[in-house]
């Protein structure tokens, strides 16, 4: 059996997925509706998640990384879902999942740090706003309970601000997460002493601690459902997932990431039972990845990506996209999927409709300097 870390180090296929190293943060507000924001840190590759298989340029740009339409889960005549997303495909069929393509925040450079800052604060530029849009969303809701205690090691920026939030993080800090281990490998590659030691350590660990019990994505989904499902429980939650920065050996890594995400959302749905009908899950990343594969079987930092809106109240079973195409001319700066839909407006609309708030007020509060998009209405049933 190949240990996950060996997989990461040597880019072999078929490892288990604990790549989502998530933690959950909750907010208490008085409503029966639930809103969950899942952030994919690291710029998830939307093109291999919601795959534009019918675009004539797709297969050529992606080469070996192209998703074979025969194995993907067809959504319509243009798009297919990555085969790791079986639960989400089921939700799509049940009209509980809506996929959005070619979406982006206002951020146009390609730094993770700055991109996440813009995504989480809701500003136009990095570091322009100090608090997070999810916290401001909490402030729009009637508050149910005062004493919020943070168990999380830290509150993610999107949930930081003046509104009180609860947090809970299953403690699993012993192991460094796989993304960090992978990056350390890269960092040590050119250093003969450290490279040798590190390779040895990763091999030794792979042999020594077979698949340690950790926080599986299912566990995280179940845990979140337990909290959100309670009658007096929190109603707004954020789950952080890491490990989406796939510069190399993307095929296996992205498959694992997506399988984890799929399992997490599936477990959340199952755990919530009837409350799933009152729940909306919004999945987004800071930006997308290059349209073309790079020289190391991966993709580099890009611009537009895909987002997901999932839940019992979602008017799903459709793709929301003004598809710009992947022709050389259509690409943003000649390399990235061009954004044609504003992620901020999408978030505001979905959040407002999910929680029965005024969409325009929600837009102003969450993304103060961004234009409201009226055309985006009707995504969630009342």
């Amino acid at each position, binding site marked *: 059996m190949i240990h996950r870390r060996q997989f990461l180090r040597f880019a072999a296929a078929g490892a288990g997925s604990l790549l989502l190293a998530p933690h959950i943060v909750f907010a208490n507000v008085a409503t029966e509706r639930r809103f969950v924001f899942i952030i994919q840190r690291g710029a998830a590759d939307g093109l291999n998640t919601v795959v534009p298989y019918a675009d004539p340029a797709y297969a050529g740009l992606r080469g070996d990384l192209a998703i074979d339409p025969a194995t993907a889960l067809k959504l319509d005549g243009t798009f297919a879902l990555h085969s790791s997303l079986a639960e989400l495909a089921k939700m799509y069929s049940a009209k509980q999942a809506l996929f959005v393509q070619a979406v982006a925040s206002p951020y146009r450079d390609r730094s993770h740090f700055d991109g996440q800052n813009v995504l989480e604060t809701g500003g136009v530029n990095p570091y322009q706003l100090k608090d997070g849009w999810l916290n401001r969303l909490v402030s729009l809701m009637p508050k149910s309970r005062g004493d919020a205690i943070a168990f999380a090691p*830290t509150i993610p920026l999107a949930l930081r601000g003046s509104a009180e939030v609860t947090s809970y993080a299953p403690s699993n800090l012993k192991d460094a997460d796989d993304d960090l281990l992978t990056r350390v490998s890269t960092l040590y590659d050119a250093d003969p002493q450290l490279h040798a030691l590190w390779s*040895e350590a990763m091999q030794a660990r792979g042999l020594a601690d077979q698949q340690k019990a950790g926080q599986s994505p299912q566990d995280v989904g179940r845990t979140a459902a337990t909290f959100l499902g309670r009658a007096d429980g929190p109603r707004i939650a954020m789950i952080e997932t890491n490990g989406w920065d796939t510069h190399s050996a993307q095929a296996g890594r992205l498959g694992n990431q997506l399988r984890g995400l799929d399992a997490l959302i599936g477990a959340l749905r199952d755990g919530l039972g009837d409350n799933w009908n009152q729940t909306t899950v919004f999945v987004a990343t800071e930006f997308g990845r290059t349209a073309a594969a790079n020289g190391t079987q991966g993709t580099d930092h890009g611009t537009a990506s895909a987002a997901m809106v999932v839940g019992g109240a979602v008017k799903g079973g459709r793709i929301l996209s003004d598809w710009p195409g992947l022709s050389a001319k259509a690409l943003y700066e000649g390399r990235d999927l061009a954004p044609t839909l504003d992620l901020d407006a999408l978030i505001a609309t979905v959040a407002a409709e999910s929680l029965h708030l005024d969409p325009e007020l929600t837009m102003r509060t969450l993304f103060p300097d961004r234009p409201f998009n009226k055309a985006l209405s009707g995504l969630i049933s009342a």
Partner: protein
Amino acid sequence: MATPPNADQAIALNRFGLGARADDTAPADPRQWLLSQMDHYEMAPAAFASADTSAKIASQYREDRADLKADAKDDDADAKAAAMKALRQKGQELYRAEVAMRVASALTTPTPFLERLVYFWSNHFAVSADKPQVTILAGAFEREAIRPHVLGRFEDMLMAVERHPAMLFFLDQVRSAGPNSKLADRVERNGNKRKIGINENLAREIMELHTLGVRTGYTQGDVTQFALALSGWSIGGLNVKTEGDETAGFKFRPPLHEPGPKTIIGKTYQQQGEGQARAVLHDLASSNATALHLATKLARHFIADDPPDEAVAALQAAFVSSRGDLPTVYHTLIDLKAAWTPQQVKFKTPWEWTVSALRGLGITTVADMPVAPMLNQLGQPVWRPRSPAGYDDIAASWAAPDALVRRVEVAQRLTRKLDLDPRQLAPRILPDISNMTSTEVGRAESLRTGLALLIVSPDFQRR
């Protein structure tokens, strides 16, 4: 080739200092910055304000032990065992508090070069906190025997060290008695079977580790003679069932001393009593072999695992000509070109890495951090080298696969609550940062991953 200014700054902060702090500005004149620290050294920094003296710690220990013994009935083995366990636990608590104070001092000191020298000398004169008496006194040993003498003469430090109860306990000196001592006579007269005799441990380690260095010409006979000269060097109070002293500290016990002259490395010492071993220590401190031994260790610490002969020779000469005046030796060290080579050749020990990581990340207090267990995990528990030789000062001892993984895990733990931008932090704490590290840190998937990468980067693992 002159080193670029950034490299000199990085060397001053990281090789001579304890690592740049997040709020440091790089010194404009790196050499002057190091020299000037000698004018501002704090023998007893605020971080140690709540620390007790070894006398106080020892008397508290005696009281606790007496209380626990009184509570446990003589015939109840379980109660006795529980009492011993409770006593050990108290010792461990004190030890952890001492370690936390040491770290706090490392994080807040305005004179990091001199703190580094404290750790150097403390490790040179290593005690290991394995015996309960050393567990509770190791911190006080460093404060009382090392810190006051870091800017003094080597001989004074040597004298303070060898007379400190922690060292006397650690190297089994406390009950060492000459075969012709008054105590031995008395025991024999009384027909007592009690074993009375000399213990050579302290004498041997003073010559082999603290002064001359191994294989420098002394013989087993010299060790034995020196041990005889040292007999009677003992402590007051604490575990010694003799005259009922209440104090813990050096005490010369005439009944244990072996009478008569002793001949050590060709020189006969006619002094009587306590002064005899003092005279031997004076000569050992002044020996050329000692100068070479210390010069080699200093050069190894600041220059390279295998230091160049010229550097060692320069330090040795400074030591000899100044008669062991340590500031003179440090001046020479700072002047050595070899100490300023931009290549980072010293792989940080776990202690060095931890302290520099905490400083670099802007962490100024470890009040809520289990820092002693953390250093244990990283492979270098403070004051517990398990050997009187102290911890090794070469990469081979520390650069190991698992050790590296543990640093990465600790890095993730240390950075999980932080909100710093690693791109801004990186050049401040590593003025000479490599392009590779700078790029990879900036590419990380999240700020926290970037920070963790920064403190496990090759640039940061070495100094």
